């Protein structure tokens, strides 16, 4: 039978990358000199699993590399190699190499052999040459083929059955090797009443003729080595006693694949239709499609809750069904109860389904210990990273998209925030700077805070730079918030020396844009010499949105609540019409353009006088505008349906949803709307 191993690749890669993350965080938490044995064990187990899996699935290069790592970890476990900063560094590098190797195998690209060999040699150099050699597996060759008449005396110790072994199995195996005959010796059998049926009293004399090596026979007795008296000899020679030292014969390993062969992973096909991967050598095949699909691990609790909820729903449904069959006025109250229950079920079910996509934020946080360690070594700062709220859950897609902005912000804190140890000491602070990542739920949002106890943001430097760049004028009076917000302007950097970590001035604006695209916001708080805190607020999920329903003519639109600043009634005196069509509203000391939604969407409405309707002040991508609407309706959570997939992209609209009465309402894209109205003004002008 042949089994297509490629069907297990995806699981192998997933668990291996998880294992690598576990190894990395384990290594980072290891105390030099006095390593915690449990941590070393965890790291060892991860390496061990990767080695086992890669060997089994034919990724020989990975298996060989991991083997050396595993040997080193085993020595650490046995305390024959002490944990030093150098060994930890080398192991961390090995984790990187291994990650690259696995990625290369997964994506069927070339493994960077030079680097692999470099790190592997460094690992081997750390180990004594002897231990490496003795632990590598060798295939024992067989002797030259001549017929030998073997005589074997086999006397198991009385407890043999308690190991689950059975002499009959051994005899069957021997009989497969050649001409087999056996004589049972019952002389040690006690009287029946003395006999313990669980013990073995028998011994056997076996004759075995054939082209058989001694190793082959020893292999059959491998599992009972040490549990029996065993003599293996030929008819013409005195049987040799081999009770204590049976030669160990390694089970032959599968035919090794070379690195280049590993790229040729056969496509996932049904069982027995494809030969085993080791046999496919010339046929170039595409990557298995299964490997492309992201998968998600869901805890059993969540699935159970979901199943439970569906059960409830079924009960409610059948209750309502029964009511519907014989409905009269008396049963109206029951019907209402039933509908209320249905609503509750639906909401709970929706929440449960959403929770499936939620993952603890530790997935995004786990890369930071390593990054902080490497960066602080690189730039000579002493930094302690504190992680809090790692179990806070966040939508998987959001998690993936927030990762890079987070990296950028943490790099900034390390590079710009935390001072050098000497500067810190001079400022009366501890030499070790603290960078803290904290995540928690607040209302319907996830809040992620990145704080440091560094030098804080210098107002003067920022305003100076902003004046120099022409972003503000010298006469402008700005609040702290507005000053800090300047950091997010494109091309803004105050770093005196541009380092390769940060300070190139690209980034913070991208960070802000990315976060806004996710429907979130970012804010900076800072005190000079005390530190800075960057606060990111994200929606829990991208699938649901808190919306403000607005009315324009006979249509209902939805404005995302996060983009609404305030809503107000228009005072005629505050409105200025400039250059033809454009209307500007004076909001306190700020002028904002008015976007008439009935014009933007060509909707007929009776409300065309600004004083008859309302202005909803919104902000999108740093720009403010006043949306002129007929009226505000309620606020509610709406499920976002994509217009792109169901219809086509529409400017000024980010999606649609279905309201309770079955009508479709468009969800406004505030940034797009502001851009759109500006273009209209330009065209009109």
């Amino acid at each position: 039978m042949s089994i297509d191993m490629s069907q297990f690749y995806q699981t192998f890669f997933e668990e291996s990358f998880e294992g690598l993350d576990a190894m990395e965080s384990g290594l980072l938490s290891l105390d030099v000199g006095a390593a915690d044995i449990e941590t070393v064990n965890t790291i060892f187990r991860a390496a061990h699993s990767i080695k086992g899996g890669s060997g089994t699935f034919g990724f020989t290069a990975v298996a060989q590399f991991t083997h050396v790592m595993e040997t080193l970890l085993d020595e650490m476990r046995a305390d024959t190699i002490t944990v030093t900063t150098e060994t930890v560094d080398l192991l961390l590098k090995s984790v990187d190499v291994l990650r690259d190797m696995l990625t290369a195998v997964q994506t069927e690209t070339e493994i960077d052999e030079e680097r692999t060999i470099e790190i592997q040699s460094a690992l081997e150099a750390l180990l004594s040459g002897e231990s490496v050699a003795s632990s590598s597996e060798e295939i024992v060759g067989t002797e030259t083929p001549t017929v030998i008449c073997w005589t074997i005396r086999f006397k198991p110790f009385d407890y043999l059955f308690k190991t689950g072994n059975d002499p009959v199995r051994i005899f069957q195996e021997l009989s497969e090797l050649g001409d087999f005959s056996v004589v049972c010796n019952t002389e040690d059998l006690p009287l029946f009443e003395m006999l313990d049926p669980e013990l073995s009293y028998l011994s056997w004399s076996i004759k075995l003729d054939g082209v058989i090596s001694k190793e082959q026979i020893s292999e059959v007795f491998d599992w009972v080595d040490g549990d029996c008296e065993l003599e293996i000899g030929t008819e013409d020679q005195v049987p040799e006693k081999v009770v204590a030292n049976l030669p160990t014969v390694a089970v032959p390993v599968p035919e090794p694949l070379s690195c280049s062969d590993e790229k040729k992973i056969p496509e996932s096909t049904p069982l027995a239709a494809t030969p085993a991967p080791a046999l496919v050598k010339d046929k170039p095949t595409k990557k298995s499609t299964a490997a492309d699909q992201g998968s998600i691990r869901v805890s059993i609790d969540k699935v159970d809750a979901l199943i439970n909820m569906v059960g409830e729903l079924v009960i409610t449904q059948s209750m309502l069904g029964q009511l519907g069959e014989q409905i009269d006025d008396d049963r109206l109250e029951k019907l209402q109860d039933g509908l209320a229950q249905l609503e509750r079920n639906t909401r709970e079910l929706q929440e449960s389904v959403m929770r499936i996509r939620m993952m603890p934020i530790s997935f995004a946080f786990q890369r930071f210990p390593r990054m902080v360690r490497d960066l602080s070594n690189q730039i000579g700062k002493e930094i302690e990273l504190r992680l809090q709220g790692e179990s806070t859950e966040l939508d998987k897609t959001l998690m993936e998209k927030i990762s890079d902005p987070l990296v950028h912000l943490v790099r900034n804190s390390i590079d710009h925030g935390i001072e050098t140890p000497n500067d810190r000491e001079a400022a009366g602070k501890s030499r070790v700077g603290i960078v803290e990542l904290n995540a928690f739920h607040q209302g319907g949002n996830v809040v992620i805070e990145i704080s440091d106890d560094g030098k804080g943001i210098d107002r003067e430097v920022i305003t100076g730079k902003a004046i120099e760049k022409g972003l503000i004028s010298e006469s402008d009076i700005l609040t702290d918030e507005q000053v800090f917000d300047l950091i997010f302007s494109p091309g803004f950097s105050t770093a005196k020396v541009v380092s390769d970590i940060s300070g190139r001035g690209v980034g913070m604006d991208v960070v802000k844009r990315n976060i806004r695209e996710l429907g979130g916001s970012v804010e900076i708080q800072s005190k000079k010499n005390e530190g800075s805190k960057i606060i990111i607020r994200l929606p829990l999920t991208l699938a649901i949105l808190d919306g403000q329903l607005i009315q324009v003519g006979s249509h209902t639109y939805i404005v995302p609540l996060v983009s609404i600043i305030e809503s107000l009634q228009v005072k005629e005196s505050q409105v200025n019409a400039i250059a033809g069509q454009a209307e500007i509203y004076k909001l306190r000391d700020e002028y904002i353009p008015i976007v008439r939604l009935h014009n933007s969407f060509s909707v007929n409405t009776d409300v065309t006088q600004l004083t008859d309707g309302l202005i909803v002040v919104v902000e999108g991508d740093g720009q403010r505008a006043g949306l002129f609407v007929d009226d505000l309706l309620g606020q509610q959570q709406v499920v976002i349906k994509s217009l792109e997939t169901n219809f086509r992209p529409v400017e000024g609209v980010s999606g649609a949803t279905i309201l309770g009465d079955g009508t479709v309402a468009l969800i406004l894209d505030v940034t797009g709307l502001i851009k759109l109205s500006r273009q209209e003004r330009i065209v009109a002008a």
Partner: protein
Amino acid sequence: MAKILAVDDSASMRQMVGFTLKSAGHDVIQASDGAEALKLAQVNNIDLVLTDINMPIMDGITLIKNLRTLPAYRFTPMLTLTTESGTDRKMEGKKAGATGWIVKPFSPEQLLATIKKVLG
């Protein structure tokens, strides 16, 4: 066919072993660590135990030791799945009461051959 308890903390190994055994018509029960396996063994009549050695929570050696104290599993064949090429861990398994071992990496064919050997 036989009811086999397969224990491994690696999901891909569990998948591979499980699929192979099922394809050969065996009934397979899987566990991801020793403690889970021990619980499952108590509510099932297992004919053969295949267990990895290095696992979190409860390792394979402890699992075998524990299983051997149960009357139902005094004579049940139990094999360790081990990548250790040295004899130490095999012997440790044997001391705990293991019947034998299968050395990783193994192919599905090798696995089935060994199991056939044990089950007769």
